[in-house]
């Protein structure tokens, strides 16, 4: 089973939040969406979750009871305990009694939250609260799991825990679409989608994104064209969209681009070529 949005366009007033976006999320894989504020990540996730209407395009998504969604806000109730939060959501999906108790115990264990079961959500660390949100999104064994920035602003150990939970869901056959601002997470996904101002800059497995990148990136203390350059540590990197690795800009030191370089280069190309 593959879930998807196809040729999706969403407008809010005069703002085009999604502009002809097609993304597929196959069962058993993690698709990661990267991009900054206003890139359209949350809009794409909400579109696939059926939370908003498209201006044009189509959405293929499972019925609500087969869908799990973790919004960018915490996704839990601060005044309820961890157990109460899980039981409340499970109840909506008709989980009760022994079945609920077993499922709850299993998920708490996997998320390393068992010791915190009786704590109010308000008293959890940021990382624990995101893990609770994850548990609540997956308690009913959804076919499609949509996670809006599950790892933003949390500690590295919780981040690794969350990646394990996400991986576990995919390995057991769930289709996962998640957004992130961390490019190392996107590199780890089976398929990554880079959004910028509502459009797909590039998508595919990381190896293919890297292989299809056109142009050359150079490094220097001072850039030749400031509006094509960006900071990497003590040096600046600069993008030459029309150069080729066999014919680089004269006298320049070329670098092997990583995903950070590729995303910035493509964003700059879009800004520098589109009249604002």
């Amino acid at each position, binding site marked *: 089973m593959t879930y998807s949005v196809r040729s999706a366009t969403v407008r809010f007033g005069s703002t085009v939040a999604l502009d002809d976006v097609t993304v597929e999320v196959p069962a058993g894989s993690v698709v990661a969406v990267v991009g*900054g*504020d206003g890139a359209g990540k949350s809009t794409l996730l909400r579109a696939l979750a059926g939370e908003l209407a498209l201006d044009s395009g189509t959405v293929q998504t499972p019925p609500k009871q087969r869908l799990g969604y973790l919004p960018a806000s915490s996704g839990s109730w601060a005044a309820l305990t961890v157990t109460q939060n899980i039981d409340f959501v499970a109840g909506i999906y008709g989980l009760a009694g022994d079945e609920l108790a077993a499922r709850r115990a299993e998920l708490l264990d996997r998320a390393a939250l068992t010791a915190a079961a009786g704590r109010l959500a308000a008293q959890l660390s940021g990382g624990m609260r995101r893990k609770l949100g994850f548990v609540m999104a997956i308690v009913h064994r959804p076919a499609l799991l949509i996670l809006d920035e599950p790892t933003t602003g949390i500690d590295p*150990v919780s981040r*690794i825990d969350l990646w394990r939970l996400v991986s*576990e869901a995919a*390995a057991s056959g769930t289709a996962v679409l998640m957004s992130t*601002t961390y490019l190392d997470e996107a590199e780890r996904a089976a398929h990554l989608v880079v959004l910028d101002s509502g459009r797909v800059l590039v998508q595919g497995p990381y190896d293919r994104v890297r292989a299809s990148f056109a142009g050359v990136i150079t490094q220097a203390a001072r850039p030749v064209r400031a509006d094509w350059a960006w900071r990497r*540590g003590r040096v600046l990197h600069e993008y030459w969209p029309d150069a080729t690795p066999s014919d680089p800009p004269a006298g320049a030191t070329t670098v092997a681009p990583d995903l950070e370089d590729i*995303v910035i280069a493509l*964003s700059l190309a879009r800004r520098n070529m589109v009249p604002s």
Partner: protein
Amino acid sequence: MTGVLLRAARVTRRFGAFTAVDDVSMQVQPGEVVGLLGANGAGKTTLIRLLLGLIAVTSGRVDLLGGPPDRERRRRLGYVPQGLGLYGDLTVRENLSFSAQAYGAAVPALPPALAPHADVLVRALPLGAQRQVAFLAALAHSPQVLVLDEPTSGVDALARAALWDTIRAQAEQAAGVLVTTHYMQEAQQCDRLLLMSGGRLVAQGSEADIIGSTTAVAVRTEDWARAFAALNAAGAPVMLEGRAIRVADADPAGLAEVLKAAGIQASLQPVPATIEERMLMLSRQARAS
């Protein structure tokens, strides 16, 4: 020693029976960007509060700009907390004017990207723009020392590069910069890294020095879903990496046995750990001891 902007010499801080910072020595020189890494509870925030003079040391000594971190020296310091320290109910211009007055500095001019937002309430701005305002507010009085708490968390790659350009410009003008972070992308922008765990400074130097000989294991197999389930059930810290499986803080022989018992053919390869995996390993060790 002359020229050291920020220094901790054998600094310890206890809260009751709990030692939050344990015998830490470190320094920041003019012109360098130093990254302070550590998981939650590693002692980063307490160390920063000690360096800023917001709390007192239990033992050891802190020097900010050549002396104790008093009010007069703190005037020459710029600080951007993780929560940004802006007033959401004031406009961009009002926030900048307030902080400039507090430091007795001129109100900074708005860069072109922020100019259209001058009279917008800060809480109505996107996070990337809020971060830019916080930087402007912290830099208006040309501080000699800049302390930044996860400066680029949650912003996109292009905005992140722009913020790092600003940070680097300060260092080029001989300011010393201390950045707390637990993200690889921020750590890679620093000249030098310090790694804390359990209140102690456990490693320092380049990214390679921090990771040291720590490895993770890459598991490649046709049967990735079953391999993942088997390793996960055995309690290994597993994650997917494309269609491969990555296991942090593990011994390849032990993993090979788990896979063999499950009848799965796989190749196992030790690979250098990431900074996060190094921190996971340290925090598991701390929990075990």
